[in-house]
């Protein structure tokens, strides 16, 4: 039996050490991802708490079709999206992008890190979410597509537009 299967078994049995192990293993990782998406530490911590509580309540229904972390990750992302919807932060794709799609291929820029940092946290979370999953979590387009339940083409488009938005903002010298 693999370590993950054993962990799931112990979680289903309600063993406290298994719950502690789960939080220690994934808690900080999840918190960092949620923080980067939500840009709010307290909210990120709330989402992580809600995620684990949901995982504990639903562990008996977990069919192990995906990995445990993938399942937990999906729950956290859904909860983050709910929060973003409340803040009306997630605009429709068509409403947001007004720049030039080709900017990336033509422009080589000197990266001002501080400005880039501001742009990342200032951009719409719809794009930031995909950037975080791709660059920070190092997930593939396919994995992101499965996680967010969106087509691979949509993910590629969001990723490309997100990058272009950042580059264009940098070229313009910030917002």
């Amino acid at each position: 039996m693999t370590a993950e299967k054993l962990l799931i078994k112990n979680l289903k049995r309600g063993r406290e050490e298994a719950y502690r192990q789960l939080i220690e293993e994934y808690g900080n990782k999840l918190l960092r991802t949620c923080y980067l998406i939500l840009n709010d530490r307290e909210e990120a911590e709330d989402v992580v708490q809600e995620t684990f509580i949901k995982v504990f309540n639903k562990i008996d229904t977990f069919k192990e079709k995906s990995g445990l972390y993938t399942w937990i990750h999906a729950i956290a992302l859904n909860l983050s999206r709910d929060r973003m919807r409340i803040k009306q932060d997630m605009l429709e794709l068509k409403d947001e992008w007004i720049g030039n799609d080709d900017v990336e291929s033509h422009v080589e820029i000197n990266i001002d890190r501080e400005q880039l940092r501001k742009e990342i946290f200032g951009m719409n979370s719809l794009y930031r979410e995909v950037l975080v999953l791709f660059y920070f979590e190092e997930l593939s387009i396919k994995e992101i597509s499965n996680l967010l339940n969106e087509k691979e083409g949509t993910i590629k488009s969001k990723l490309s537009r997100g990058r272009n938005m950042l580059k264009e903002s940098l070229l313009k010298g910030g917002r």
Partner: protein
Amino acid sequence: MNKRDNFGMEIKSIMEEETFDLTLSQKAFDNIIKHRKKSLREKIQEFLNREIEIPVAPAIIGFAALLAVALIPGDLFKSQNVKIIDMGGSHVIIREGYEVSKK
């Protein structure tokens, strides 16, 4: 991520810098653990160890009432309204009250 993708590397590096010291607080950790699913053994132990709060005044009144019922004789307050007249070998019993039996 392409190895030559400097822009992507920069994004990743900024994200890592922003979050490297970010950890779940002890309060959040404890709160999560509090909501975990409990094993059957723990549920039984919890049930057996739970504290029951009893308000003092009603408890004393109840206890006193129970004591009174158990210790005080039932006929203590019955009025002695029976007269017995001794007539040689017979007794005549005269009661002041009467009872009507229900059908």
